[in-house]
């Protein structure tokens, strides 16, 4: 009985998202939703300014996610390799709690960090008007910092699970440590590493407060990291802030956006699980 609460939660999420989302698609054509390239869902639907294409939100989300991954993947993997292959037990014991603290910082705090510290900093580096006050770059960088622990800890687990005999074989062939790590241990741990990156990507896509604070509220079809964007999660927060009443188009649109968000992260998680299982099967 107690165990089935997780199933009920999943079913609840799916039921709620789709039942409220269906209301939306009875008002708005699903083709327009996926093909139109502007997102201006407020105001009168009869008005010309009213546009309901979700693409700008998806593009904004992906832009922030790509920036975040380009921070977190190199730093997270380097941290994982250092901890698993180079660090002494003493250093490991000191660094791992720091990563845990970093992972435990509420994201609204990281949003504050992005807006009041990172944004002024990058606006100083690129003077003029190249960087908006709210911009994808600052939000993406901080989302990247947020997911470093995810990449680092899962990758470290899978690197540590590689049998010592593989390393010894590589040394006995005369390979230096760096080549052993990069060409023997790293490929052997690859499925766990891929899984860590996919999980981190899911977290970046679903991250809400950092982008709501630092990325802005202007849905735009742009890949320019210096400009203001809006992500799917950012839109949900903005629309809720207007206290949309149930049944209104704005209220229903939150759930339509929620469906895409849920499906994207759910699929990423399922693929990540598949890779995790594979690395367990090989070594355990």
């Amino acid at each position, binding site marked *: *009985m*107690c*165990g089935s609460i*997780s*199933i009920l*939660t*999943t079913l*609840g*999420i799916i039921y*709620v*998202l789709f039942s409220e989302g269906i209301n939306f698609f009875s008002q708005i054509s699903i083709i327009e939703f996926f093909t139109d390239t502007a997102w201006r869902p407020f105001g009168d639907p009869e008005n010309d300014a009213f546009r309901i294409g979700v693409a700008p939100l998806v593009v904004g989300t992906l832009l922030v996610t790509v920036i975040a991954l380009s921070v977190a993947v190199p*730093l997270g993997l*380097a*941290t994982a390799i*250092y*901890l698993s292959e*180079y*660090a002494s037990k003493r250093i490991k014991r000191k*660094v791992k709690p720091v990563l845990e603290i*970093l992972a*435990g*910082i*509420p*994201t*609204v*705090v*990281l*949003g*504050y960090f992005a807006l*009041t*510290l990172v944004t002024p900093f990058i606006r100083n580096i690129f003077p003029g008007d190249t960087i908006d006050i709210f911009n994808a770059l600052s939000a993406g960088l901080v989302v990247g*910092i947020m997911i470093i622990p995810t990449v680092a800890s899962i990758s470290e687990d899978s690197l540590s699970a590689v049998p010592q005999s593989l390393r010894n074989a590589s040394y006995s*062939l*005369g*390979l230096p*440590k*760096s*080549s052993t790590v990069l*060409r*023997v241990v790293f490929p*052997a741990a*690859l*499925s766990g590493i891929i899984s860590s990156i996919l999980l981190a990507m899911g*977290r970046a*896509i*679903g*991250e*809400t*407060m950092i982008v*709501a*604070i630092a990325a802005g509220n202007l849905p735009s079809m742009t890949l320019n990291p210096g400009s203001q964007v809006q992500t799917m*999660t950012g839109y*949900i*927060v903005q629309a809720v802030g207007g206290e949309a009443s149930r049944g209104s188009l704005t209220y229903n649109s939150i759930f339509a956006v*929620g469906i895409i*968000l849920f499906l994207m*992260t*759910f699929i990423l*998680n399922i693929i990540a*699980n598949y890779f995790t299982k594979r690395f367990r099967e090989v070594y355990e």
Partner: protein
Amino acid sequence: MTLLSTPRSTTKDVAIALQTSKASTRKERLFQLFLLFSTLVGLVILVVLLVDIVVDGFSSLDLGFFTDYTSRRPEDTGIRAGLTGTLSLMVLVALIAFPIGVGSAIYLESFAPRTWFTRFMQLNITNLAGVPSVVYGLLAAALFAYILNFGRTLITGALALVLLILPVIIVAGKESIKAVPPSIYQGAIALGATPWQAVYKQVLPVAMPGILTGTILALSRAIGEAAPILVAGAVFSRRADSEPWNLTEPFAALPVQIFDFVKRPQEAFQVEVAAAGILVMLFVLLLMNSAAIVLRNRYSK
């Protein structure tokens, strides 16, 4: 498969390594330095963040900051509504999530038959842990606030957080129960206990510190979350605090209030007042985490 493909590249490496054995010592050093530097980035950022918050927030921290409601003037504003709301949420979420989470963990670990359905349930719990927190807010907003007609109230916010952290508690609980030596269970059974008595009277007390630690850590994660309760209906204004313990009243919470401060146009709010709010929230989280660590250390022998 990856295992089989490695020897091919290693033969090439040996040749390269033998040719460049002198230069390679320096390359080794550089590589290790690069790794160390990358590891330190996270640490340095954490220090910068904490120092920045203390420097910006400390001046706004006075008694009035704890006893005042929000105001349009930064010097008069306070976090009373958020702090009481967060404390109410904490108690409520713990009261609801702990029994359900522990019950699920016991069932899955000790009693559930190993069928496809249990495996499916396990997989489902893992996947739920990866669902973005804002989606739990959507679930609560629609299901509890409107369909069950609780409105955008304290209980709706609490239930959103309960659903968010249940998978975490269940996983932590299962791990702790699994770590109990099977001999304890078998000993109880051998002495004539029923399976239920063996689990409830023997296994559970041993596993409890681990379960409690996991629950407190999950709870501290929930308390810092702004997105789900924002969507489930948390408000910023003082009307949130007429009766902080009343389940059917609107509610505020610290992270939501910090979000409100950061979004205001005046710099005094955006920087100083927000940082002061963050300091209070981080202090609450620190207390919870310390409690978890003390528990873990006391019982780890």
